[in-house]
């Protein structure tokens, strides 16, 4: 009995160490593979493993996310700091990825929580708490709906921004192309003459 407790504690301690050196990256493109992540982070950290988060609960099209375990805690801190202070781009521009320190509850394979006290309580009709518990249930459901509404709202906002950026990017590109054309086919000299400006060609 004692040894299994000890073992459980040790297991959890190992797990916590692992959590400390793992970072959580999201706003990832679904096209990104673990190889890409390893290569991307190679400048500041060496990646021990990459575990992609599978979406089971959000009923929208969301960006990918991954738990990336690094070699040690200091590397994790370096990576998180880097990606917080600078826009770090992986696999597509310009939307940067976000990184934060991992938390135990992010790991779906986490070991048993040592502090766990399972207080199981049955509340049935007729009990004084029955009403209250039902109301709590309804509250929980409402809160989840609120959460999902916020998620939906955010995703729409993101789509907006992406569209805007794409438009302005296309415009910029057209503009630069046009300039390039004019310089190339010499029309710029005509324009310069027309507007009475001096052009210095290098």
């Amino acid at each position, binding site marked *: 009995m004692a040894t299994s407790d000890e073992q459980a504690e040790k*297991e959890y301690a190992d797990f916590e160490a692992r959590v400390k050196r793992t970072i*959580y990256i999201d706003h990832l493109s679904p096209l990104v593979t673990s190889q890409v992540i390893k290569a991307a982070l190679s400048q500041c950290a060496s990646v021990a493993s990459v575990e992609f988060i599978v979406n089971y609960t959000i*009923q929208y099209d969301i*960006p990918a996310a991954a738990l990336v375990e690094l070699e040690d805690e200091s590397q994790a801190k370096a990576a998180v700091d880097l990606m917080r202070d600078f826009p770090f781009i992986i*696999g597509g521009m310009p939307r940067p990825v976000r990184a934060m320190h991992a938390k135990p509850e992010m790991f779906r*394979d986490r070991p048993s929580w040592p502090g766990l006290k399972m207080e199981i309580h049955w509340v049935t009709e007729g009990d004084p708490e029955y009403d209250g518990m039902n109301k709590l249930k309804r509250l929980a459901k409402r*809160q989840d709906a609120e959460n999902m509404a916020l998620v939906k709202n955010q995703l729409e906002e993101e789509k907006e921004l992406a569209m805007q950026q794409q438009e302005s990017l296309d415009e910029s590109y057209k503009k630069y192309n046009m300039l390039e054309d004019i310089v190339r086919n010499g029309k710029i000299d005509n324009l310069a003459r027309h507007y009475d400006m001096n052009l210095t060609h290098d």
Partner: protein
Amino acid sequence: MDGSSKNIQFSWGKKRSKGGAKMDTQFYGSFTFDNVKYSLYDCVYLFKHGEPEPYIGKIVKIWEQNQAKKVKILWFFSPDEIRSYLSGPVVEKEIFLASGDGTGLADINPLEALAGKCTVVCISKDERNRQPTPREQAVADYIFYRFFDVGNCTLSDQVPEKIGGLEVNDLLNPKDEQVTSYPCQDVQGVDQKLGAGLVALLPQSAVKMDDENLVTAVTPPMSGAIPLPPAVKEDGKAKVAAVSLPPAVKEDDKAKVAAVSLPPAVKEDDKAKVAAALLPPSVKEVVPKPTQNIPKRKEKVHSEKMPSKKLKLSQDLTSQSMAPVPEVKVRPGPLELSTTQAVDRSKWFEPLPWDEELLVADEDGRLVYIQNLDIQFGASDIVELIREALQLSCIAQPINHPTYDDPNNGKAYAVFRSRKTADAAILKINSGLVVGGRPLYCSKGLLKVPKSSGALVGHLTITNQRMGARQREEQKKAVSTSHCSQPNTIEYDLALDWMLVREKQARKFSILHKKHKEERKSFAAKIGK
């Protein structure tokens, strides 16, 4: 789990000649390492320290000298390794056998560096090569038909006469079709009786075996077959093997049939693989190759190709690794359940990889979606909860999405043994199960989650018809290379836009979730009165 190198199973197989200057070298034709039988000319994985991907090679010599066990490995090259010498199409699963003379042809490695076997089938049309059956080719991990000369760095599909002093015949496909307990793609569901029957045979067969090889071959199922009580009592290490074996035992159902019909054709020589070679026809079972089955099955499930394969492989073998084996990630894949569950689960069914399990269970009506759990609960905690509260056994996993889900509300999927038990569970939980002040609620079935659209919202593309194909390629590469955005680019401004949006998002979520937490607390206090 612990780093100490406890004894990894090892035993020598067929002896061959003796040699060496002082006649102190013993050559062998086969050996069993970590319950996997390796023979001459088997294809194996080796990990090099620091490299994420394993190397693939062929064992061409096995010996022991001065207590040191060594193998000589003839290398295969992956397409990436010889990218600059490659031209033309590369076949799926193609690798290239080293030939010629020079560095990179073969290396001597300590035997302990081996990390598992793989199947490499030669599809060269050369008359010396036995043409593989379509099935062999389909289940093979890799194929090859070209040779890379390490001396002049050239690729060729001409089969050389010798490689490294060895006759090329030994290096091409073995004469007999490999009877291996490969997972059959169409094996669905679990035949529990068959599995039990298989297990029941094991004790007797163990007794019958007096041949040294056979004993070692049978030990894999013995040590791993969970349904046998002694195995269950073994230390934690066996549990890891246990997780990997049950699927293997399942796989054997189909392979069994094949094996039973083949014994007459099987020759007991080094070339034939474990499954077929060792068992006399009277024993109707196939020794599973746990390391093979798991990677193949997991490979189907995971979208990651090589990495997940390697992860599974390394989990099975290197969890008990000794020093020479380089440090490789040893933990279950993303969708697997914790190994502490192994003993419990294995008692009643051999589970599929998690994703498949979810689908199958959903179809059967055994999947329950539980909500309002404490987010700290791990998989084993949830299983224990169900057991204590409902006296039902299940397998479960918490499934919250770290970015978007409300941490006040823990969600999980639980898979029960039967539809009836699942229904019963739902009724009971919904009727009023409260855990730590949290009333749980649940429903049946998988949530419908849309498939990913393919590209990230916010990754922009530049369309320009005037660019040539090559320029487009280069641009694609430049754009997709990961980097820190530099301030003097348009990209930087756009990236900052995103950083602003996500910062705002993060705040919004945090405010909402905090509000929820407060609401729950005050509500609970109110009804407490």
